């Protein structure tokens, strides 16, 4: 099953809409609530990152029998050092993002903690691609 969602940069009113829809879908499919929580927490952090940092983005969700694969592809400033961005506490978030309760440098570490596989590629001035895979059964 495949789903696609569009994200607008700076649109904090709708940030989390895609994550909410994915949660509803996983609930309907009777996915284990603990796994659902991991998937949607990782997705929500990634979705907020796109809203906070990029101009726009697309989320592709692929629900398979043994895993859930999510790819967030954005057009934006990109990440100059992924290694630095992965460090807890590192953040380039704006005051607006901090007002919303984010921007403390916990987003990418939270995604990493909740993903079985996390791949991030980025090109400065072009955008960032985040791939999150969660297995439905122990590997």
């Amino acid at each position, binding site marked *: 099953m495949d789903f696609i969602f569009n994200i607008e940069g700076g649109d904090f009113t709708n*940030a989390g809409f895609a994550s909410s829809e994915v949660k509803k879908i996983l609930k309907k499919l009777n996915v284990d609530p603990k796994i659902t929580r991991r998937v949607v927490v990782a997705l929500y952090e990634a979705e907020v990152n796109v809203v906070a940092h990029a101009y726009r983005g697309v989320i592709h969700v692929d629900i398979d029998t043994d895993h859930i694969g999510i790819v967030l592809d954005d057009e934006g400033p990109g990440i100059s050092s992924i290694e630095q961005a992965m460090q807890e506490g590192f953040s380039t978030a704006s005051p607006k993002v901090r007002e919303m309760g984010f921007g403390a440098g916990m987003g990418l570490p939270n995604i990493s903690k909740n993903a079985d596989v996390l791949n991030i590629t980025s090109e400065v001035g072009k955008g960032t691609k985040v791939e999150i895979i969660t297995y439905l059964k122990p590997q």
Partner: protein
Amino acid sequence: MDIHAILKLLNGTLVAGQLDNTTGFENAFASDLMSDVLTVDADNTLLITGLANIQTIRTAEMSDIECIIVARNKRATEEMIELANHSHICIIETPFSVFRVAGLLFQYGLKPLY
């Protein structure tokens, strides 16, 4: 601990969700930092916060938190209330500070998560 007991203890007002919510809350977590809330991995948890915006509700939804206590007379917006009702999340407004709410709930027996 049920919604009725929480409302009484905190001099609170239920502005979203149902009074007949039967969840027995066991844990509480206080934070204005939503990424911190997203680290919570426990059921039957209350969120105590001073942050009243739409992402507070989204964060609770992703973390399976069914009740948010908005402290120190902060008001939930109409869009927060609408989303909370849609997501079956209770919002309680209280005049008490985050510190006082946490103290009262701890005294009542709710457990901290960290």
